[in-house]
Structures are given as C-alpha cells and as structure tokens.
C-alpha cells in the first residue's frame, strides 16, 4: 500500500467569486460593500461568494451548509479549482491552489484531492470496477495495482459482487457507493463531498453517513462536506460553516451553532434540531459542586445529552457525574438539567432553556 500522507488543513482566505463577463471590473465595488442584489441589478453580474474565510481542520470533517443558491457548491469547487476565484486564496497546507499552473493543478487533483458528486457523475459506459479505478488509471498506475486497490474499497463500501455491473443497473444508493469507492481508491488526503448524500432517500442517507463516519475513523482525511441538511451537518461535522447568499453567516462546532445561533436565519434552522444529539454533557454540567461528590453513574466527556439521559434513566438515577478520559471527575449532572437542555427553546435569545 501507498503510505498514508498526513492530511493537510485547508484555509480559505478572503475568497470572492463573481460570475459574469467582466468579474474583475466589479471586484473592488464588491469589496467596498456592494450587495449581491445591487451588483445583479446594476451590472448584471452575480456575486457567488463574498469574503469567505474558513479554516478547515486537518484530518477532520468540515461541513459547509446552506440552502440552494447559497454558494456552497461554488465554494467546494474552489478547493480543487474546478472554478477559478475572482480574488482570494485557497491554501492547502501552505500551497495556494489559485496560484498553480495547469500542470501543477493536474498533479494536485490527481494526488491530493478526490471528489464525490451529488449526481454521482459516474461514467455510464464503464462498469463499477472501471469507474472505481478511474483516478488511478488517470495517474498511469498499472492495471493490476488499480484493480487491487479498487477492490479493497469496493468491498469496504459493500459492493462486492457488483464489479462488472454498469451504473444504470444500480440503485441510487449503490451508485453513490461507487462514487465514494472511486474517491477513496484515489487515496488522496483531501476528500471533497458535494452534497454527496442529498440525492439519496433518508434511510440510505443515514446508512451512508455511518459508512463515512466509520471510514473516517481509520482514514483520517480532511473531508469537506457540503449539505443543505442541518441534521446531516451536525451528525458529520467536526466544524460547520453556514453559508447564505455567498457569505459565511456563522461557523463553529455544531453545538456552538445550535446553542448560540448568530441570527434569526440560523435560529430558524436550529429550532428543528434534536438538541439531545448535539449538545454535550460538559456544556451543561454543574462544576460548582465538590469534585469528590461522585453521585450516580460516570459519564464520559463528549457524550451527547440523549445518551446521558439514557444512561441515567437506565440506572434509575437522577444524578450523574462527568469524567474525562482518565476518569477524573469534572462536574455533576442532574436529570432535570439534561432534559430541559434537550427541549427546544422558544427563541434564540434564550439559548439554554430556563429553569
């Protein structure tokens, strides 16, 4: 096997994208604060992305969330430069993707990134195996190695036995498994997933999310995941950035966004979220009690409230204590606080529900 490369972080800096015939002409106006509507009405250019700054964690999953038209798909295409920016930088490690010449870019795409697409974008005239090896074939690797490496991932995503089927013969979920296997076979440190699971029905989507999370535990790639679904974002994302009309409205961990929505727009999203699966025990634990006061079951830091509530009710205990990885007590938890934090507050002004 090829050595696993350490996955680099990705920094997007002051990234702007204007669509139209003369984007360079209007970039200064936009930097001075011209809005998307104004630019479109007065000059017939569309502002795709405005001053995007995101630091994506190395070896973690960065989710970019937004509704359609928010520019999220445009943003992910800047990372492997399927779209050229109007201004700004995309730093992968310490290399600026936007400064690469065509040859460097081709090398970068071959070895550093792999992408999964919303509409799968499989080659319809190729079998599952021939689709999966595509990235390696382009790199000029010998066929026997191509097949060997592809087979591993075909097995891993659960497509064993379908190697010689054509994409048209597979269901949507299976086609996207091929898309995933194709990307993983490339063994690139960066995995770009553009609404990869959005076209799948809910059960299969959950299933694919599980596949991704399981894989990520072993492969530790820098994953950029685009979605319009907040539940998906919260389930997958180590970090989440929310995009609206080409601007980042808020970024941070899922818990941070759910508990402190930056504005009305985001709080309207998070209102529907199952907080029990997002908020962690350490956020609501009471640290004022004596740290030797170990009441009830021990719950590890990083546990969600839903799980904590289950542990406590199973143990028929109204109190629990939170411990770190070494077993040291950090604070205490009572069932009332747990339940009230799981209930959705009325407004975002009042993030953690009042007693």
């Amino acid at each position, binding site marked *: 096997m090829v050595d696993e490369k350490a996955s680099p972080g990705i920094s997007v800096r002051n990234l702007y994208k204007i669509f139209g015939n003369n984007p360079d002409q209007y970039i200064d106006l936009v930097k001075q604060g011209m809005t998307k509507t104004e630019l479109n009405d007065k000059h017939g250019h569309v502002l795709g992305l405005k001053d995007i700054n995101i630091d994506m964690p190395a070896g973690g999953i960065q989710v970019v969330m937004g509704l359609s038209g928010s520019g999220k798909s445009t943003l992910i295409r800047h990372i492997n430069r399927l779209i050229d920016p109007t201004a700004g930088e995309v730093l992968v490690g310490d290399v600026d993707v936007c400064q690469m010449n065509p040859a460097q870019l081709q090398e970068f795409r071959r070895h550093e990134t792999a*992408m999964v697409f919303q509409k799968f974008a499989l080659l319809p005239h190729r079998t599952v195996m021939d689709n999966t090896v*595509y990235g390696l074939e382009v790199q000029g690797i010998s066929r026997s190695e191509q097949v060997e490496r592809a087979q591993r991932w075909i097995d891993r995503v659960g497509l064993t036995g379908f190697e010689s089927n054509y994409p048209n013969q597979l269901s949507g979920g299976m086609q996207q498994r091929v898309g995933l296997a194709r990307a993983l076979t490339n063994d690139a440190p960066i995995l770009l997933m553009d609404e990869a699971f959005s076209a799948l029905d809910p059960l299969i989507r959950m299933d694919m999310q599980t596949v991704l999370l399981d894989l990520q535990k072993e492969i530790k790639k820098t994953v950029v995941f685009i979605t319009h679904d907040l539940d998906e974002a919260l389930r997958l994302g180590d970090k989440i950035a929310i995009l609206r009309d080409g601007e980042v409205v808020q970024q941070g961990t899922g818990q941070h966004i759910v508990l402190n929505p930056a504005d009305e727009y985001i709080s309207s999203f998070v209102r529907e979220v199952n907080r029990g699966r997002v908020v962690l025990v350490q956020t609501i634990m009471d640290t004022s009690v004596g740290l030797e006061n170990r009441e009830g079951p021990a719950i590890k830091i990083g546990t969600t409230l839903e799980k904590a509530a289950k542990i406590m009710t199973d143990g028929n205990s109204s109190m629990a204590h939170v411990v770190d990885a070494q077993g040291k007590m950090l604070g205490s938890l009572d069932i009332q606080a747990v339940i009230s934090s799981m209930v959705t507050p009325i407004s975002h002004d009042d993030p953690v529900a009042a007693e």
Partner: protein
Amino acid sequence: MEWLYEFPNMDIDSLRALKKGIDSGFRGFTREYGVYIENAFEPLKQFLIYSEKFMLETPWPLIILLIAGIAWFASRNRRIVIGTIVTLLLIGYFDMWEDTMRTISMIFVCTVLSIVIGIPIGIAMSRSDRLQSVVNPILDVMQTMPSFVYLIPVVMLLGIGKVPGLIAVVIYAIPPIIRLTNLGIRLVDKDVLEAADAFGSSSWQRLKNVQMPLALPTMMAGINQTIMMALAMVVVASMIGVRGLGQPVLQAINNQYFSLGLFNGLAIVGIAIIFDRTSQAYGKRLQKYQEVVHG
C-alpha cells in the same frame, strides 16, 4: 419608372469580364499546380485501386462470407445477416456482381476517408465555438451546393476518373459525420466531465475516456448518414467516370432502358439497406450500457 421593372444589374461587359477573370485564373491555377495536386492524390488512387481489386478478385463466396461476417460482428442479429446474404445472392444472380463490388469498394473508401477527415474536424469544432461558427456555414454550402457545380473545378483539376469521383462523393457525404461528432461531444453530460476533471484527467484522457465513448452512439449515427449519402452520390459520380452501379443507371436514363435502370437501382437500394441496418444495429449495441435501468 423603368428601373422598378428592370433590376439595376451589373453591366454585361464587366460581368463577362469578371467571369472570364475567374475562369482564366482558375485555369491558370490548374495549369500551374494540377500536376502537384494530382500527385498528392496518388496514394488515395492506389487505395481505391487496391480496394477495388480486392473486391473483384476475391472469389464471390468469400466476399459474401466476409460481408455477412461483418454484418454479424456489428449487429449480432441473425435477420440482418440472412437479409445481407440473400440480397448479395440476388444481386449476383441478376448479373450485377461486378458493378456492385465496384460500388461497395468506392463507398468503403469514401466512408473511411470521411471518417478519417471528419472526426478530427468534428472534435476540433466541439472544442472551439469560433471554429464551429466558421465550419458550420461551409458544411451548409457543401450540403446544398448542387454537386454538379463542384464537379466542374474538380474535373478541371484532376480530369475524369476515380479520384475526382471520390472527392465529389466525400464533399457531399462528409458533413453529417463532422456535425454529429461535434454534436455528440457537446452533448456529453457536464457532470461527468467535471468528475473527469476533478480526478486530474489531461485533456487527451478526457477526450479518450469520457467524450469519445459517450459521443460514440451519436457519431455512429453520423457515419450511417455518411454512408447513405455516399450511396446517393453513386449515380452522379458515374458521370465523371466512376464505374459501378451508377453507370448502368446513367446508361438507362440516356437510352430509356427501364428494366436496366430498375435492376441497378434496386441493387443500390439493397446494399444501402444492408449498410444502414448493420451500422444502425452497431450504433445501438454501443449503447447497451444504457439499456438495463435499475427498477
């Protein structure tokens, strides 16, 4: 008010002078470069002669086997193969074997030449909108200009014979393959192309792995059209000395031999149907991967 009824045309003398100028200019060009151009077409002529010799000198059962074999390879359809064999036997029985072989040889060379020239032009057109806007009107002219008109300069340059016939046929028959190659490549799904780019395909890999295979069914439709149009030109080409099924038809027109015209005409129809069904079936087989759709 006379000018309303009489179009204010160029005066006769200058018009005559203009035509004369063009004619003598072209004649001069012919005298100057005719030899070189003829020499340049020499390899093509050899190809034509070789191909015709092959068709005529191979024993007829072998030819029937060969054509039936090609039909089977391309279509995998028993009915098409049987139809092919019966048609060829009938043609032979009615004493049109030699002419038919000459025509098939001519069509074969014309099709190969059209493919060799047409596909690269089609690919280039698909990559550049500017080239497309230049080539398209030229193709329009090639398809609508009465073929007799461009026969004149071709005959002036190259005389009468196989090569000018070949050129006339190719000019008439090449537009569909160019147009449909261009169209086929342009119609390739953008998502799939984006995926090919995302994995770092070079532009050659993109063409070879994605664009060509996905455009192939459309290109096959173009090749089918090209073959049909080449066959349609057989009679016209016979006017400038191309031998084959066209010549008896021409003779029949001149002498009002109804049955001679009919038999040879039917022979042309027969081989047209063979070529058409075979190449269409092949085009369809190329799309087999699209047939089985998940429920």
